Structure formats: structure tokens, C-alpha cells
């Protein structure tokens, strides 16, 4: 038996399909290091393998099992009940009925998307902005709808293009379809586009070339270097921070059963709000005045003076 405690990250999809999971992986590794533990990554592809991986992780004697995504909602409570001594950190989702050894950490993505929309509104030259999502599911509306709301908030007269969805066989990994949709949007004079297409985002960025001055917004991590000059800013979901905090809390024993992360907690942010924006490769670096305005808006959201509605209206 290894003397070091074990931390396992079970991913719902192969890591790297989106940057979001890459961050989770990085977060797991850092958290394990901080706790003096060994980190392992188990990649799943579907509910059956998710279950297998959770089982395998618990059987391996993991102290903390990190699960990221909605995909775990149904399975985790069952597995958690079977392994009461293992602690499960569920990131980005939470089962409807609480389980003693499941600790949830969820995001308020819409807050950062709202700010991204504000950036779009403030920088758009054509006066038309829009969003592209991978799939038309409520969860992704947190990006697309809040983005539009943010733009409207700073510029009520702004025109919002109808949201397009990538769909197809492979919505999260079909850059060609992303490109096609974005290029249609751009040809309609939409010059700020929220790219909520995960692995398809590269195509969306590429389409920005069609219209001089057009720019997209990346998600999850800083995607600006991927397509220099075409990405304005990113809605960053700091899964790494959330996991680091969560694992630390679990090792210490003071992790709450339910935690949400938004702008206030540093779980959601824009690249422009973080240090190092000059070297980020993002276009927003050229708009210090906009950054200032958005920072102010962020403070208002944090303070609660500006309320951002959650587009994902879940029935309880």
C-alpha cells in the first residue's frame, strides 16, 4: 500500500475535449501536490464507464474522488452510498437530494458571460453581437443568454443576432461546423461572438478572419493564443481553483456540502480581469478603458447592485 493518500479525478469525457477538463486535471494535480497526495486521472466516455471509474477509484482507496460535470448527477449518489468512507467532490453540478459524502461546487457561469457580453457591447463597431453554442441545452444558455443580456445592459440599443448551434454528429468537436456558423453570423455583420462550442471553438475563431475587426470570446481558459488577433476575451471557469480549494477543504475537513463560485469567489472570471492581461494575446488588452468599465461592472455584480439572472431555470 502506498503511504501517500490518493486523489482521483474522474472525467466524464476524454480530457482535452474541452479546456475545462484540462483545467480540472491541472487543478487536481496541484491540489494533490499541496496535500502531499498522489493524483490519478480516470477518463470516462459514457455513463457505464463513469460508473466503472468511480467504483475503481473508490476501490483503489482514494481519499478524495473528484467528479466534474452534470454527467455524474445520477450515478454519484449511488456510488457514494456504497463507499461511505470516500469523499466525493462534485464540481459543476449537484444531485437533487444531498448525500453525506458528496460535496458540491458549482459555478455561476452567467455572471462572467454577462461581463463578456458587456465587453462585446462596449467594443462592437457594427452594433451587432451574437452567440454560438455547441448544443441547445439549458446549461449552455448560461453562456449564450447571459452574454446577450450583458451586451444589452451596457448598450440597450445593441442588436442581438439569433443564437446558432453547432449540433451535428459531433457538436463539441466539429470545428468545421463551428466555422460555417460563425462565418454566416459574421457575414451578417455580427462582429462580437460568444463561442460556446468547446472543441469546435477553433473554427469559430477562424471565421473571424472573414470580417476585419470581428472578434470572438473564448471559454474556460485563455484561448487567445490559439487564434492570435481573433479572440477578444475569455469567459474563464476556474475549475482548477475550485478543485484546489475543495480538495484542501476536504483534507482539512471544513468543506461545505454545497458551494457556489462566481465572480465574487474568483471561480468565474474574464481574462481581462486577471493579472497578465498584456501578455494574454487577447484583443481586449488594447482597450484599457473598457477593462476599467468592466471591472466596475464586476464590482457591481459582486456587490449585488446589478443582478444577473440565471438563464438555466431549473425546476426544484
Amino acid at each position: 500500500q502506498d503511504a501517500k493518500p490518493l486523489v482521483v479525478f474522474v472525467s466524464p469525457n476524454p480530457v482535452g475535449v474541452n479546456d475545462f477538463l484540462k483545467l480540472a486535471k491541472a487543478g487536481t494535480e496541484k491540489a494533490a501536490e499541496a496535500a502531499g497526495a498522489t493524483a490519478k486521472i480516470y477518463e470516462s466516455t459514457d455513463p457505464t464507464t463513469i460508473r466503472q471509474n468511480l467504483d475503481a477509484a473508490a476501490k483503489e482507496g482514494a481519499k478524495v474522488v473528484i467528479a466534474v460535470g452534470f454527467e455524474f448527477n445520477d450515478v454519484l449518489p449511488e456510488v457514494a452510498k456504497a463507499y461511505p468512507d470516500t469523499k466525493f467532490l462534485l464540481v459543476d453540478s449537484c444531485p437533487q437530494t444531498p448525500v453525506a459524502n458528496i460535496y458540491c461546487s458549482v459555478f455561476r457561469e452567467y455572471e462572467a458571460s454577462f461581463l463578456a457580453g458587456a465587453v462585446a457591447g462596449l467594443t462592437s463597431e457594427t452594433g451587432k453581437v451574437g452567440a454560438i453554442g455547441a448544443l441547445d441545452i439549458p446549461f449552455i444558455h448560461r453562456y449564450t443568454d447571459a452574454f446577450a443580456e450583458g451586451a444589452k445592459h451596457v448598450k440597450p440599443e445593441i442588436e442581438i443576432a439569433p443564437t446558432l448551434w453547432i449540433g451535428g454528429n459531433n457538436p463539441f468537436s466539429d470545428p468545421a461546423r463551428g466555422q460555417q456558423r460563425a462565418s454566416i453570423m459574421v457575414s451578417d455583420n455580427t462582429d462580437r461572438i460568444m463561442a460556446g462550442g468547446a472543441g469546435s471553438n477553433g473554427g469559430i475563431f477562424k471565421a473571424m478572419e472573414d470580417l476585419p475587426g470581428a472578434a470572438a470570446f473564448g471559454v474556460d481558459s485563455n484561448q487567445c493564443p490559439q487564434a492570435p488577433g481573433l479572440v477578444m476575451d475569455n469567459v474563464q471557469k476556474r475549475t482548477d481553483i475550485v478543485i484546489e480549494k475543495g480538495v484542501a477543504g476536504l483534507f482539512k475537513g471544513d468543506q461545505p456540502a454545497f458551494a457556489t463560485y462566481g465572480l465574487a469567489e474568483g471561480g468565474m472570471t474574464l481574462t481581462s480581469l486577471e493579472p497578465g492581461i498584456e501578455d494574454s494575446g487577447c484583443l481586449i488588452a488594447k482597450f484599457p478603458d473598457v477593462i476599467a468599465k468592466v471591472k466596475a461592472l464586476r464590482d457591481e455584480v459582486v456587490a449585488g447592485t446589478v443582478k444577473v439572472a440565471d438563464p438555466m431555470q431549473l425546476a426544484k
Partner: protein
Amino acid sequence: MSLMSFITPSLVNSAVQSITPILLAALAGTLCGRVGVFNMAMEGQLLVGAFAAVVGSYATGSALGGVLFAIVFTVLFSLILAYGATVFKGDSVVICIGMNLLAAGLTAYLLRQMFGVSGTFSDPGIVGLTKIRIDAINTIPWIGWIFSRQTAITWLAWILTAAVTIMMFRTPLGLRMRGVGEDASAAGTMGIDVTRYRVLTVLFAGGLTGLGGAQLSLGTVSIFSEDMSAGRGWIAVVAVMLGRNHPLWAALACVLFGVADALSVRLQSQGLPNQLTDIVPYVVTLLALALSHRKRLKRRATETITAHA
């Protein structure tokens, strides 16, 4: 809303772009079909082409390098079908299904092992194909959008469509190929080396599909992502069937699909759910298939349709 504003030039432009890989694959399928090799491995061939193109472009730092890689590696990959279905007399359906799976597995595996990523590989080091701007027509409202701003591969695809058609129906080579496909033993007795014709045709078709793969990964996006052929190869198979191995009819089938696909995007922006608009191209294709096979079968017991020769 008038039709003109419904179908915008940019929509047509993007439809032309997105048809290109399918068109090249369909062309490849027709060629193979003409010499009597049923090719339904285009899905995998496109994927291999797309991957090799990205590798080549990244390694050589030039889009042309990427295109050459795509052609070379897809041709190599096509050796399996070229020899498997001829010299080794394997069943082409089985071989093609195996090839499609191998392509998916191999590209995903190599993606991880070569670049340490899974899912998507994008890097500024991948040089994409430039779009050819023809300044003379660039500003003409419709024409400019459709004919300018396309990659060389798109142009090549249409030129190849014409060239293949002429080759097929006007040259000795084409006549011989048609003969080989119609009755291999008859062609054999006329001194034609049937196997050689088949092998070379399948390999050439592999090159065409590789080109299509390059367009997929370098033409519009400069990215490789797992399974990025995403069913396009299958659409090409359908186009070959719809076109009954005639390059022009197959091209028309591709256009039909492209138009339906573009329309579906348009319908989406009208607020229809994408899950429903996504199926429009497939429903249109199914309808076309049904219409083109409309004649009622009379011989009931002896007739069974075998798609492959």
C-alpha cells in the same frame, strides 16, 4: 422574408466551402465504383487526410506541405482497400468498416502520442490554406462572395469533377475503367490488367479523399479534432449511390446536400431548434434517395439489392 434575403451570398459561400470535402470524397467513390470496388471507407480516409494535413502543415510550416502529407498518407492508408478488395479478394464492406474504425482509433491515438492532446489539436504553428481572392470579382455582390474567398482545393475539386467526367467518358483510360467495372472478366480477356486498374484507381481516389481531408482541417479551420469527418464520408457514399457512379450526378447530390445543410443553418437562425434543423439535410437526402429509386420492384423474389459489386 424573400428568398434572396433568406439565402445570402455568405450562406452560399459557406455551403460551397463545406461541400468541398464531401465532393472530393464522392468523386473518389465514383471512381472506385466505376472500376467495381465499392468504397465506403471515405469517412476514415477523410479523417486520415485531415490528420495528416495538420501534421504536415505543423511539421513543414506550410499549407502545401500539409496538403502533400494528406495526399501521401491517405494513399498509403488506401492500400488496405486497394489490395484487400482486389488481390486478397476481401469483402469491401468489411474492409471499409474496419478502415473507418482504424482511422478513428489511429488518429486519436497518434493525436495523443504526437501532440499530447486529445480531442482537439490547434496551434498557431498549423498553417491553413489561404483563400484565393480574385480582386476582379471580389466586389461583385453575389459572384464575389461565391467565387472569391475559396481555397485552391475547392477550385481544384470542381476542376477535378469536370476532368474526371471528361476522362471517364472521352478517353481510352475512362473507357477501360468503365469496362473493368462493368465486367471484369470481359476486360481481362481484352488484355486489361483488371487488378492493376483497380488498385491504381483506389489509390488515386485515396489521394482525392486525402485532399478533401486537407480541406476539412486546413481549408476552413487549421485544426484537427477527433472524428472531425463527422459523417461527411458517409454523405459522400450516399452521393455516390444517388449519382449512380456518375461524377456529375454525384456532384449534384453533394450540392443538394450542401444546400439543404445551408438551409438548415438558416432555419436555425429563424429560431427552430437545431436538433430538428440538423436533420433537414438527411431527410432531404433520404427523400432524394427514395425518389431516385421510386420505380416499384416487380420481380419480387429474385431481386435483392446488393450495394456492392
